[in-house]
């Protein structure tokens, strides 16, 4: 009806166009990578097997997405819960500790987290998920705190004065108004973890990192390129999908909030 257009934003049509194009390219590559054999053969004539074939790219991609999702769900739930907790009066004193813990999680190199997780949970997918959780939680926590602290004090004052219970304040005012900022944290977390998940292949997880790592150790540049392109496209498509969500949220929560 009265959708305010926000200046400097891509039109919805153009936005959908970009997402669709990147998505189509991603799907084609994932399904038909072996069809590019002649291309890679021409580029790297010395290679006997110029297209990675130990697992299909579909399998690799699904595993990759699965690992990121398996980490993102606990990251979102725990990250938002922790951010909400330390912005309550009763949890304020834990803000410092939480900050330290999540910052350590992020400063640790993912390879080190993986190495530490293996003795605990074994090889394969599990240590990868552990590393992704440790790695992805900081942006969600940080943005939840920033988003809630950024809620207009006038709106909070009105809510308090009109008789909202603490839960009503949280779910009707704070979380909806903080949603775009929280979502930006989730976006960062997911994009970081799409990249980080590739390293999981060093501890035996099946991911889009598998061709990259095998290519690096076996001097097969074609494998490296194949894995890297698909990971890159996956990150771009995901980021664009978040951009669509963001545009939606910002229509609900005006910038002037």
């Amino acid at each position, binding site marked *: 009806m009265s959708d305010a257009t926000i200046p400097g934003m891509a039109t919805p049509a153009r936005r959908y166009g970009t997402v669709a194009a990147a998505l189509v390219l991603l799907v084609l590559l994932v399904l038909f990578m072996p069809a590019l054999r002649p291309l890679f053969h021409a580029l790297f004539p010395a290679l006997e097997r110029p297209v990675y074939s130990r697992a299909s790219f579909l399998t690799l991609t699904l595993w990759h997405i699965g690992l990121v999702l398996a980490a993102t769900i606990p990251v979102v739930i725990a990250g938002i819960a922790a951010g909400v907790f330390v912005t309550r009066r009763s949890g304020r004193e834990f803000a410092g500790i939480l900050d330290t813990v999540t910052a350590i999680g992020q400063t640790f190199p993912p390879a080190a987290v993986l190495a530490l997780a293996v003795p605990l949970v074994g090889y394969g997918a599990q240590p990868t998920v552990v590393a992704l959780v440790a790695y992805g939680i900081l942006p969600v926590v940080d943005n939840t705190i920033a988003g809630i602290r950024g809620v207009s004090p006038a709106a909070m004052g009105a809510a308090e*004065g009109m008789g909202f219970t603490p839960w009503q304040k949280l779910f009707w005012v704070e979380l909806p108004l903080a949603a775009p900022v929280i979502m930006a944290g989730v976006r960062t977390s997911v994009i970081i973890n799409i990249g980080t998940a590739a390293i999981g292949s060093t501890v035996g997880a099946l991911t889009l990192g598998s061709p990259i790592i095998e290519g690096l150790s076996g001097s097969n540049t074609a494998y490296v390129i194949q894995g890297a392109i698909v990971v890159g496209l996956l990150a771009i498509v995901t980021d664009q999908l978040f951009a669509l969500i963001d545009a939606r949220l910002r229509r609900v929560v005006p910038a002037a909030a």
Partner: protein
Amino acid sequence: MIAFENVNKSFQGRAAIADATFTVKSHEFCMFVGPSGAGKSTALRLVNRLIAPDGGTIRIDDDDIAALNPVELRRKLGYVIQSIGLFPHWSVGDNVATVPRLLGWPKARIAERIDELLTLVELDPATYRDRRPHQLSGGQQQRVGLARALAADPNILLMDEPFGALDAVTRDTLQNEMIRIHAATGKTILMVTHDIDEAIRLGERIVVFEEGRVVQNATPEELLANPANDFVRALVGGEAASLRLLKIRRVREWLRAGGNADGPPIGADEHLDTALARMLGSGRDALPVVDKSGQPQGAIGLGDLIRKAP
């Protein structure tokens, strides 16, 4: 009825409210005036328990509010905050419906009430109901804030500088609206302002705060005629207080029954400042006075203004 009994409140050792005792009667329109930092907002926020007093008692209709559930209490009191504070992610209609929704009114009744209130504050429901606060002007937002406070038909309305950031014309319109709403509904209203003219125009009772103390609690007429101290005297404008008095007194109060004057008449319900302005503007020293139905009531002249002024 709202009664403050020896109420104290300090922030970091500084008294924001110091031993305040006063009573606001039911249906009364009461204004809190005073300079910035005098404790007006604090006094208001003590009433809906956004702030707890350090000492003393506040009663609403003989109930000590300290014994009431704060959330329930707040839902019973209409509250307009100093910074409006509309919920930016909700439509105008949803904003207005806030308290009815908290109270669990049925949907149909809420929808009806939204339109009723938007009409009351002179915003066309069809045009504004589905708009968002950022699509309204400042004055329209203040109207929505007022409608929101009135939504559940509270007996008591707490208003913290509701017309603070408005131009003179919009302010004037909204003041008239408040007078109309108060006359129509008989609500008890506590309104904070630092504008003495607003206080005199709207208030039936004015409580003057200075550094947390209640320095005077009086009707506008008493305040203008007998300021309690130099501070209040300066607040009401020193000698200009007599001009302010003309703004609240009506022609019928000071007219000479049976008096005669020539020229176009003035209504008996007009304020005296209007009569004075008309004398100055038309070069006459007296005006004939008529009532609503046009019946002659007498006359009002410059001499009457001078004789009756305190």
